[in-house]
């Protein structure tokens, strides 16, 4: 059939087959060697890579620690916030998807596109958040319509919630994403990019304790990043709980008493420095910051002439006015300039050289001793006494009451106020001190500036015999097991052994201010409990001229920013002091009529609560 010779007859052919068979075997040998090197030598390396392909570790955000007041009243906790996110691998037709979402939730397609663009840096398996904190209703809508929303899922994240509304908002601070700068610091070594962190206030100060420990979800994903199964989970541990020294009842009473006025109220435990109320008004809603403030809200906050964002307790610096008079009195008694019984005549003014310094009471107080000078707030008595004592003596006393320096409050940018001295003025202005400056300093005007927290601290020291306690805001930190991890230790800032007689004289006078007829705060007295206090009315710009005063009396409105600050410092009860309250009402007018009633409201709340607690205590005891 074929003319071709049989292959085996062709010379050299057999050799060619042997060689080619050897080549084939060699080539398969090379392939085998390669397999061996990949699968035996490289197995660990490739298994590791394979694991990295499919295993994702996803942190589970722990619930941040809650914040309570001193009685366990909840101030800050967490609520679930629903966010609508996209799993990018499962999103097919994005235009259609966004159109559906837009119709469903009434959001702009452009806003969704914007978020989509911003989120492209996220790892592929991480859902890309499109809408945050959408609310339960929107969440349900998305879940009901999930068939029209391929690739969309609803995520739940804990968000800070404030069950008491804006109460003590200035304390808490807010959270934000940890910055690259923070991440470089050793303190934040165990933080990951994208995590929320306390930015200001208590949230920042107690960040490490409030944070809790993130849980870990080890999930197996496929190439599209879709979660197939959770391999193991380490549960997140909630953060520690923070108990503040704040008493919500007092706090609310103070906030309510201030109402829409601008100002600050501080209530301290006289014997420990614990802050029972910490009010700065107007305030803001911290929930806005938890969910993110809108530009409009922010502008309103910033442009508000009453500065709601300023923490007035720590950063408001006010001339103390007549609330400074106790310090001047003690300085004079200590220097021996006067005795408590030393009397001066007040005719309504005090002449120094050609200048006339007026008492607030035009008609004068007549014959005035220390008791009456404080009770009725005679300026002339203090002009004379202050001048004779000298500014440096006054400053020394003021400093021993903690004035002119920060109290060491751990956050909030506390201001130091100002207690002027001769050397200070030389340094500051290069000029020497004038006697006239001593005169006005004696009634807490001129250069003298104090913060509300200093005033409260000073008053507490007056009440407890001369110890300035460091004002403290955190009572304890409680861990998961309920063990107290950190406990407040009262800390003395300074202690002065004032003569008991001098102190007694001042305290008695302060008690008269409130409880005796003719005292400047007599109208704010309480029936059941005696408290001691001192009113103050601080001029904002300068002493008023006669004309202006007449105009004011005639009923003409003084522009808000020129109106006097109303002040009141106080403690209670008079016999064994427990609580000190300082009130500053910005541009509020008179201390007696505006500030003292605020303190009264705080005391009412305080003692009402005390009685109630005692009653329940008794009931429990009798029930045994």
């Amino acid at each position, binding site marked *: 059939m074929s003319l071709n010779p049989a292959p085996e007859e062709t010379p050299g052919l057999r050799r060619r087959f042997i060689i080619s068979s050897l080549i084939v075997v060699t080539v398969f040998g090379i392939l085998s060697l390669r397999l061996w090197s990949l*699968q035996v030598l490289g197995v660990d390396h490739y298994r590791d890579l394979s694991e990295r392909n499919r295993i994702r570790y996803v942190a589970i955000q722990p619930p941040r620690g809650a914040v309570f007041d001193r009685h366990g009243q909840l101030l800050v906790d967490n609520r679930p916030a629903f966010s609508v996110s996209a799993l990018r691998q499962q999103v097919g037709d994005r235009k259609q998807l966004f159109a559906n979402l837009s119709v469903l939730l009434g959001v702009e397609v452009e806003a969704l596109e914007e978020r989509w663009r911003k989120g492209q840096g996220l790892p592929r398996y991480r859902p890309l958040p499109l809408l945050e904190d959408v609310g339960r209703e929107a969440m349900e809508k998305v879940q009901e319509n999930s068939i029209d929303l391929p690739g969309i899922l609803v995520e739940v994240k804990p968000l800070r919630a404030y069950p008491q509304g804006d109460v003590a908002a200035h304390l808490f601070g807010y959270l934000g994403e940890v910055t690259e700068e923070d991440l470089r610091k050793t303190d934040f070594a165990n933080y990951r990019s994208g995590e929320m962190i306390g930015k200001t206030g208590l949230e920042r100060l107690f960040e490490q304790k409030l944070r809790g420990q993130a849980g870990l979800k080890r999930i197996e994903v496929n190439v599209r990043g879709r979660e197939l199964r959770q391999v193991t989970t380490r549960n997140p541990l909630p953060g520690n709980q923070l108990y503040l020294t704040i008493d919500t009842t007092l706090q609310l009473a103070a906030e309510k008493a201030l109402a829409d006025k601008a100002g600050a109220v501080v209530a301290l435990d006289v014997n420990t420095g614990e802050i029972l109320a910490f009010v700065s008004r107007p305030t803001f809603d911290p929930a806005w910051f938890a969910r993110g403030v809108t530009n409009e809200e922010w502008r309103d906050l910033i442009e508000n002439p009453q500065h709601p964002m300023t923490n007035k307790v720590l950063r408001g610096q006010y001339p103390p006015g007549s609330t400074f008079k106790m310090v001047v009195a003690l300085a004079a008694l200590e220097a021996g300039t006067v005795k408590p019984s030393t009397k001066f005549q007040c005719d309504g003014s005090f002449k120094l050289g050609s200048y006339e310094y007026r008492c607030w009471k035009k008609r004068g107080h007549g014959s005035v001793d220390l008791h009456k000078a404080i009770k009725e707030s005679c300026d002339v008595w203090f002009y004379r006494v202050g001048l004779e004592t000298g500014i440096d003596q006054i400053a020394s006393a003021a400093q021993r009451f903690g004035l002119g320096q920060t109290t060491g409050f751990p956050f909030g940018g506390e201001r130091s106020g100002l207690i002027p001295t001769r050397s200070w003025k030389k340094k500051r202005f290069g000029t020497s001190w004038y006697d006239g400056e001593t005169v006005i300093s004696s009634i807490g005007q001129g250069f003298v500036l104090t913060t509300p927290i200093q005033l409260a601290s000073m008053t507490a020291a007056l009440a407890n015999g001369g110890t300035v306690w460091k004002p403290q805001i955190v009572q304890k930190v409680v861990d998961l097991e309920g063990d107290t991890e950190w406990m407040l230790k009262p800390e003395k800032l300074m202690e002065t052994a004032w003569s008991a007689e001098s102190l007694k004289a001042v305290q008695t006078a302060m008690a008269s201010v409130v409880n005796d007829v003719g005292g400047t705060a007599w109208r704010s007295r309480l029936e059941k409990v005696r408290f001691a206090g001192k009113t103050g009315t601080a001029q904002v710009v300068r002493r008023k001229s006669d004309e202006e005063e007449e105009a004011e009396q005639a009923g003409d409105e003084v522009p808000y920013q020129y109106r006097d600050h109303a002040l009141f410092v106080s403690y209670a009860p008079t016999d064994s002091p427990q609580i000190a309250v300082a009130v500053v009402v910005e541009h509020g007018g008179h201390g007696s009529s505006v500030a003292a009633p605020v303190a009264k409201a705080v005391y009412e709340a305080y003692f009402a609560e005390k009685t109630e607690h005692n009653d329940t205590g008794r009931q429990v005891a009798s029930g045994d």
Partner: protein
Amino acid sequence: MFDRRLITHFDWTYLLLILLVSGIGIANLYSATSSWTTAAQPVYLKQCYWLGLGLLIVFIVCLFDYRHLEYFSFPLYGGNLFLLLLVLFIGRTSMGATRWISLGGFNVQPSEIMKIVIIITLARYFSEKARVIGFSLSELIIPALILGVPALMIMKQPDLGTAMLVLFIGGTMALFAGVQRSAFLFVAASGLLAAIGGWFLLHDYQKGRILTFLNPERDPLGAGYHIIQSKIAVGSGGLNGLGFMKGTQSQLSFLPERHTDFAFSVFAEEWGLTGGLVLLAIYCLIVIWGLHIALRSNDRFGMFLAVGVSAMLFWHIVVNLGMVIGLLPVVGVPLPLFSYGGTSMVTTMTGVGLLLNVSMRRFIF
């Protein structure tokens, strides 16, 4: 024409080896595509049908005496060239390449047919021209043209992988026919030069594949992704593999093209070095067995046919395996009998049929 001796001389061992690989391949496809729940018909089942069709082709090809093909070789070649020409003008384009034409409702890939036709044509050419000391350069011009024209046309589609395979098959047959040393050196040298020159004719994606082969990390999510994921799959298989249906690379879809070009990676991941070596051994045996059939064939045409078919299988296996284990660049070459696909199955089984045909008629004159 049908002789009882044909049955007795039928090479059952070879067919058994072919069925063995096909069976393993189908089991492997079952695992590789088990996560595809949406497909109307499972891939492994479709591959079973293709295998059935393949066996039918083997049967048909064995029915007639292969020696008749000698007379039809040039018409077949001419017809195939015409089809290739048609592809260039009226071909169907898919994924940037024009490789198919529609013939009576079927999508036909003439470049695939050419793998078989070039074997038949060159077998005819070389069987007629025996040279004791081998072919000289000038004598190689005609076979070079026979080989070069379709190869160029295929490259134009562009289908570098198939063009290369056609050249490899033809080259192997030429070497078997015997080539003088000077001619061999010349062809090797000019081949090298052509490769360098050809670099500039390559499409960007083809250049990319080669660059990425040299350094897969160049583009780990793009062109390098295939190689990286395939190596991870193979490497993580280890000595004994992760077990059937348990390879995470394939089950979780990290491995692309895992039912076609990268089917072996799935196998290596699940069966480890042990399974891989067994499969390699079977393939090696298939190639050697084919060469053995060639050696024992009773005429030069049959011998060249058997050599050509063995070369076709060999180069497919080597290029595919070399690719999936990162020894060669990614060119879309399926692993015969193992990768899913009707085209590959038809071509391979036609070749297998020819081999068996040569084998069973070695005693018949």
